[in-house]
C-alpha cells in the first residue's frame, strides 16, 4: 500500500492516539454506551484488512482462516453500525419529544 518508515509509523500512532483521546473527552455520560458502540463499529474497519489477508491467502488453511476473519469482521462492522444507529435513533426522538 504505502511504504512506512519506523518513525513515520510512530508519528501516526501518536497523533491518532491523541485524536482519539481528545475527541472522546468531551462526550457526556449519557452518550457513553452509544459511543462505545460507535467506536466498536469503527474498528470494524478491520474488514478491509481481513479482505486483503484473504485475498492473498494461498493454502487451504490460510484461506479458511482468512474466510473466518472476513466473516467476523463483517459482523463487527454491520452489527456495530446497526446497534449504534438504533440507540442514537432513540436519542433523536427523545430530543424532539423534549422540544414538543
Amino acid at each position, binding site marked *: 500500500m504505502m511504504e512506512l518508515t519506523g518513525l513515520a509509523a510512530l508519528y501516526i500512532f501518536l497523533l491518532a*492516539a491523541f485524536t482519539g483521546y481528545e475527541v472522546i473527552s468531551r462526550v457526556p455520560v449519557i452518550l457513553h454506551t452509544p459511543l462505545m458502540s460507535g467506536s466498536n463499529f469503527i474498528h*470494524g474497519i478491520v474488514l478491509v484488512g481481513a479482505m486483503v489477508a484473504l485475498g492473498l491467502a494461498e493454502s487451504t488453511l490460510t484461506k479458511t482462516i482468512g474466510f473466518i476473519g472476513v466473516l467476523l469482521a463483517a459482523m463487527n462492522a*454491520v452489527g456495530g453500525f446497526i446497534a449504534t444507529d438504533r440507540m442514537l435513533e432513540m436519542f433523536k426522538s427523545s430530543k424532539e419529544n423534549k422540544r414538543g
Partner: protein
Amino acid sequence: MDKTSLLVAAVYFVAAILFILGLKRMSHPSTARAGITWAGFGMIAATLATFFTPKLGNLDLIIIAIFIGSTIAYISAKRVAMTDMPQMIALYNGMGGGAAAAIAAVYLLEPHVIRPDFRVLATIGAIIGTVSFSGSLIAFAKLQGWMRKAVRFPGQQYLNLVLFIGIIVIGVYISMGHTDLYLIAIFFSMAIIFGVLMTLPIGGADMPVVISLYNALTGLAVGLEGYVLENPAMIIAGTVVGAAGTLLTQLMAKAMNRPISNVLFSSFGASSSGAEDEEVDGSLKPIEADDAGVMMAFANSVIIIPGYGMAVAQAQHKIWEMAKVLRERGVNVKFAIHPVAGRMPGHMNVLLAEAGVPYDIIYDLDEINDEFSKTDVSLVIGANDVVNPVARTNPDSPIYGMPILNADKSQNVIIIKRGKGAGFSGIENALFYQDNARMLYGDGQDMAADLINAIKAF
C-alpha cells in the same frame, strides 16, 4: 504507485477522516445520529475500495464471507432488545478482535507476504486480538445469563501468569521468524485460553469496564495489524478507538472507584468469597402500592433511581408515565443515574431516552448526590448495588469505596423489587433494611401501573 493503488489509498484517507469526524459528532446528542452515518459512509467506501486492491485473490470467498457475516449481524442487531444491547456490543467487539487475530494468522502462515520487521507487530496484534476475542465471548455469555457465577479456583492468577509468560516467549520466537504451524496453533490456543481465564473470575458488576477495555484492545489490535498491512485507514481508526476506549475505560473505572488492575486481578462480585454473606441487622418492611402512591403524591420532591431491573421489566415507559402524573401534581421529579447502572455507563440513559424522558431531569451521581437529604421520597426501581450504603461503611465489602447514590439519606425510600434476592454482584443490600425503607414487591411494570392508579386516586 499505480493509479488504482493511489485511488484506493485516497479512499482510505477519506474514510479515516470520516471516522474521526463521525466520532466527534457522536459526542453531542443533536449530531450523534449524523456522526454514525458519516462513519458508516466511510466504512462502505473503504470496503468497496478494497475490492480494487491490486492482485486481490479469492474474490468469491471474500464476497461469500461478507454476505454471511453481514446477514447474521444485520438480523441479530435488528432483533436484539435494547436491554440486551451491552452484550451484543461485547459480541461484535469480540468478532473484531477475532478478525484482527485472523489477519495476523494468515500473514504469519504465509511468510513471503510479510515484511520481516513487521512480524513482531503482527504477533503483538495477534495476542491482543485473540484475548479480546475470547474475553468478549465470555463477557457476552455472562451478560446473557448463560454463565452466572464468577469462576475462580486456587492458583488461578499463577496459572494466568505462567500462561502469559508462555505466550510472550512463543510470541518472541514466532516474531523471529519461526513460523511453524504447530507453534502458531499452540500460540493462538494459549491466547484464547488466557482471554477466557482472565474474564471468568470477573463478576457481572465489573463487566462494563471489561467490555470497554476489550473494545480498546480490539482497536489496538486492529491498529497493529494495520501496520502489518501498511493500511493507514486501519492504523488510524484502530489507534483512535484504542485511545478513546482506554479513556472510556478509565472514566468507568473511576466512576466505580476501582483501579483497572483491581477489576482484572481481584475477586469482585464473587458469591463465594464470604464477605457478603454476613447478616444485616433489621428486617425488610413491605409496602402496598396504594400507600407508596400516597407517599409520593404528597411529596414535594421525588428522585427515581432506575437500575437494570427496570430494563428487564421493560418498565421505563410506565415509570415515565408515573413521573408525568407526579409532575402534573406539582411534585418535583428527578431521575438519578449511577455511572454504572445497568450493564454499561449510559445504558439507563438510553432506555429513559427510549421512553421519552427529557435530558434535563436526568442527573448524574455528582450532580444529585447532595440533594437526597432534602428529598422526600427516593424510588429505587431495579437498582441494587449502586444504592448499597455498605460501599461507604463496610471496608470488608467487595464494593467498598464505590461511589453510590445516597438514596439512604432521603426521608423515605421505596424499593420496587421482584424478589428478595441480592444484586448482580451477590451482595446483601443494607439499604433495604433501614427504618426509612419500604419494599414494594412485584414486577416493575405492574407496580408502576399500580402506583399511577394510586397517585391518580388522590
